[in-house]
């Protein structure tokens, strides 16, 4: 009964989105307000219908209704309620259902917020979003139906994917990522609408900027949370493996970041319209490519979804999307071109543009590396791959240049810089960077990568600090304010700039943490008998006993746990385990992580022998890893600060609207 209801909701949802798309187009051409209202309501309805379908799926999962194939494959009677609920997005069909929920949710939000604004653009925005949603409904109606039934009904299901039921973080990072992915459809829809209606103006750019930043923040948090999940669950001591799934999230993030930067030049100078459109189109297309990569079985990945016929649908969708968007852009090309570059070679504008070249360079490298196996296979029939060392080595120099620009950009004036400015702004930051590198070296930090990143991060932070102080001092002098008050007022008067600085500070923190943790960690593998000890750095681990018992939360899972006593920093008992799930050939690691601000102690159980009571442990000291998460949070906070509604800006908008 409930699954049938869910299925029915999806079919009606498909009809609703198709109606909405048609009505938006008719309304756009005729300007008939009643038609547009009905189109909007159809989209709200579609959102309600997917919500209903999701609810039906969650109920089916919670009640272990094994007549639904998805439930039989991804749930068992012993699955704890929390993991039953999040199984909604843990496998292919469910993840598409959840995706559709978020996509229609975003669409409804935007259509509601702009119901009385941008009358020329909104019908086309609605039509684009409705067609996108219709595609996902169609996927669910044909190749990816989440409510397929089975007979005879089994008494027990397969249980959720072992990797995905091992850590509560699974409840957090996919929703964040999906919110980010699906949100990128909004700037794309505004892009299409602008190309159709020839309104690539300042107002359009402001809306698109805002609606790129919102999903960008969620995508950033999703990527960082995903890295954290990988660190806490996969048990190999690292947080980023350049796996296709990770790359799929990074690619749209890179082009969206490039857009956020170049849109500032575009807004200031009224130029770069082709480039702006191209980035918006690329970002959305890359979210589709990412979905395609992880759901079609084209590339193998640690947590790719099962192979399915959905791949052909997504491949077709990518080609149609790119074809239509690119076609529209080419059509309008003669009207969008720039006659002149926006600034001098040494200017803030050009720093932003070189920044874009570098972001696109990283995008190209990551896309090329991810698709390399497919390219080689299609071109020569042989097999080859590129792995993490390739990605690291190829991207590191580009990233170093990018970090350098992060420091240079804010210090250069708009339009063009003179030598006097360069001399004034850069001498102190460069000296500070040199001093920090020398001190780090004296403290035995060696290696090109960590020292270079440390120096550059210092350079960037000092340039920004100098900028803030300069602005605050002049404000304090002019208005007779104390310096701290002046800093706060300055920041809240220009949220975008200082929010951006905060995000850059977060990037600096992350960069240093990544460079140091990737190059300066140590690790050791040892096989221990009961009572045996292992020493690494300041830590000494004593292996007390091996415990084999079923998991309290799910009795079908057997946990083999090495109980250890840690002496040294953070001393006390710790345990690291391997869990055997009935539906997984390989045991799933449950590493013990002792986090501190300076370094993490990370202990995984590699293997064990229940007869001899021996365990093989892999122990890592990972310096500064905590700062990666802290840096990620700072980036998100900075961006949030930048887009926080400014009442004074609202006053300006109101004044403009009244004047117009």
């Amino acid at each position, binding site marked *: 009964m409930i699954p049938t209801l869910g299925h029915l909701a999806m079919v009606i949802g498909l009809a609703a989105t198709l109606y909405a798309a048609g009505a938006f187009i008719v309304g756009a051409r005729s300007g008939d307000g009643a038609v547009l209202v009905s189109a909007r309501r159809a989209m709200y309805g579609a959102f309600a219908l997917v919500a209903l379908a999701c609810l039906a799926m969650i109920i089916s999962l919670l009640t272990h209704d094994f007549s639904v194939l998805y439930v039989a494959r991804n749930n068992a009677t012993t699955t704890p309620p929390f993991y039953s609920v999040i199984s909604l997005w843990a496998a292919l069909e469910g993840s598409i259902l959840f995706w559709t929920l978020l996509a229609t949710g975003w669409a409804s939000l935007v259509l509601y917020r702009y119901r009385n604004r941008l009358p020329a653009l909104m019908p086309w925005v609605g039509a684009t979003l409705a067609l996108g949603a219709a595609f996902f409904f169609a996927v669910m109606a044909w190749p990816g139906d989440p409510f397929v039934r089975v007979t005879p009904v089994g008494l027990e299901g397969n249980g959720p994917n072992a990797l995905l039921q091992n850590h509560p973080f699974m409840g957090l990072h996919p929703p964040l990522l999906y919110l980010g992915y699906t949100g990128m459809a909004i700037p794309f829809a505004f892009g299409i609408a602008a190309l159709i209606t020839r309104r690539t103006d300042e107002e359009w750019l402001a809306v698109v900027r805002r609606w790129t930043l919102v999903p960008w923040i969620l995508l950033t948090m999703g990527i960082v949370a995903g890295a954290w999940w990988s660190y806490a669950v996969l048990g190999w001591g690292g947080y980023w493996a350049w796996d296709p799934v990770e790359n799929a999230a990074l690619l749209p993030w890179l082009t969206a970041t490039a857009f956020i930067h170049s849109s500032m030049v575009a807004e200031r100078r009224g130029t770069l319209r082709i480039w702006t459109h191209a980035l918006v189109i690329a970002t959305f297309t890359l979210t589709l490519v990412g979905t*395609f990569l992880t759901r*079609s*079985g*084209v*590339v*193998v990945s640690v947590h790719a979804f099962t*192979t399915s016929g959905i*791949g*052909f649908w997504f*491949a077709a969708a*990518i*080609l149609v999307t*790119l*074809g239509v968007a*690119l*076609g529209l852009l*080419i059509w309008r*090309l*003669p009207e969008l071109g720039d006659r002149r570059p926006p600034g001098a070679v040494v200017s803030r504008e050009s720093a932003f543009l070189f920044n874009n070249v570098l972001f696109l360079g990283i995008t190209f490298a990551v896309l090329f590396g991810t*698709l390399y*196996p*497919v*390219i080689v*296979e*299609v071109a020569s*029939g*042989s*097999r080859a791959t590129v792995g993490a060392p390739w990605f690291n080595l190829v991207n590191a120099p580009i990233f170093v240049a990018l970090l350098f620009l992060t420091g240079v950009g804010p210090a250069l004036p708009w339009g063009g810089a003179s030598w006097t400015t360069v001399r004034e702004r850069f001498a102190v930051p460069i000296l500070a960077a040199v001093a920090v590198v020398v001190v780090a070296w004296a403290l035995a930090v060696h290696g090109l990568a960590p020292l270079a990143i440390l120096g550059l991060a210092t350079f960037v932070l000092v340039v920004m600090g100098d900028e803030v102080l300069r602005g605050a001092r002049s404000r304090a002098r002019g208005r007779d304010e104390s310096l701290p008050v002046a800093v706060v007022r300055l920041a809240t008067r220009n949220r975008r700039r200082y929010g951006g600085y905060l995000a850059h500070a977060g990037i600096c923190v992350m960069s240093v943490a990544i460079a140091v943790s990737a190059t300066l960690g140590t690790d050791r593998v040892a096989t221990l008998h009961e009572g045996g000890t292992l020493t690494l750095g300041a830590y000494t681990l004593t292996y007390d006993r091996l415990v084999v018992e079923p998991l309290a939360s799910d009795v079908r899972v057997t946990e083999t746990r090495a109980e250890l006593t840690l002496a040294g920093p953070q001393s006390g008992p710790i345990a690291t385990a391997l869990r055997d799930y009935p539906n997984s*050939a390989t045991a799933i690691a449950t590493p013990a992580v002792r986090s501190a601000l300076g370094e993490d102690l990370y202990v995984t159980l590699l293997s064990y022998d229940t007869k001899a009571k021996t365990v093989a442990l892999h122990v890592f000291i990972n310096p500064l890893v905590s700062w990666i998460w802290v840096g990620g949070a700072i980036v998100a906070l900075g961006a949030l600060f930048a887009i926080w509604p400014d009442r004074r800006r609202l006053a300006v908008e109101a004044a403009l609207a009244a004047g117009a």
Partner: protein
Amino acid sequence: MTSPLSFRSLRWLALPIVLVPLGWLLFTGLGRDPRLIPSPLIGKPLPAFSGTTLDGATFSSASLRGRPAVINFWASWCPPCVDEHPVLLATGAAHPDDLAMVGILYQDTADGARNFLVRYGQGRWPTVLDTSGRIAIDLGVTGPPETFFVDANGIVRARHVGPLTTDEMRAQLAALGLAP
């Protein structure tokens, strides 16, 4: 230099330049299995191996010579191996004399393997324990089930990754010159 007219028409070339290669890549990429890796052993002599069987006997790959041979890597923990097992049993029964067969246990315990054979049926061929994993390495095995087809002269003719169906088995045997 370029007249507006030619620019206006030429710019449309960007569309096929982007879409055609991308479409080709996406669709041809879809038609293949990323887990299938061509074996460098095809056309080369089978690497020699030996080991202890489940029954405690000694097995040497030299004993495969003179007849076509099927070498099957399997494990009791691998669900596709269960699907494949009846195909192997039928092949063993259909070719009692003109085909050599050997199973090689992949990262599994002898007890687990014995239970599997009791449950799903014992074939006429021996299963070699590959305790150190070296036989799997020497044949470049990526995971069970994986099956090698070797001709009577000891040359590797084909490798199949994943469970064999009756039809696939028949086709491979026909390529080795065995009538169904």
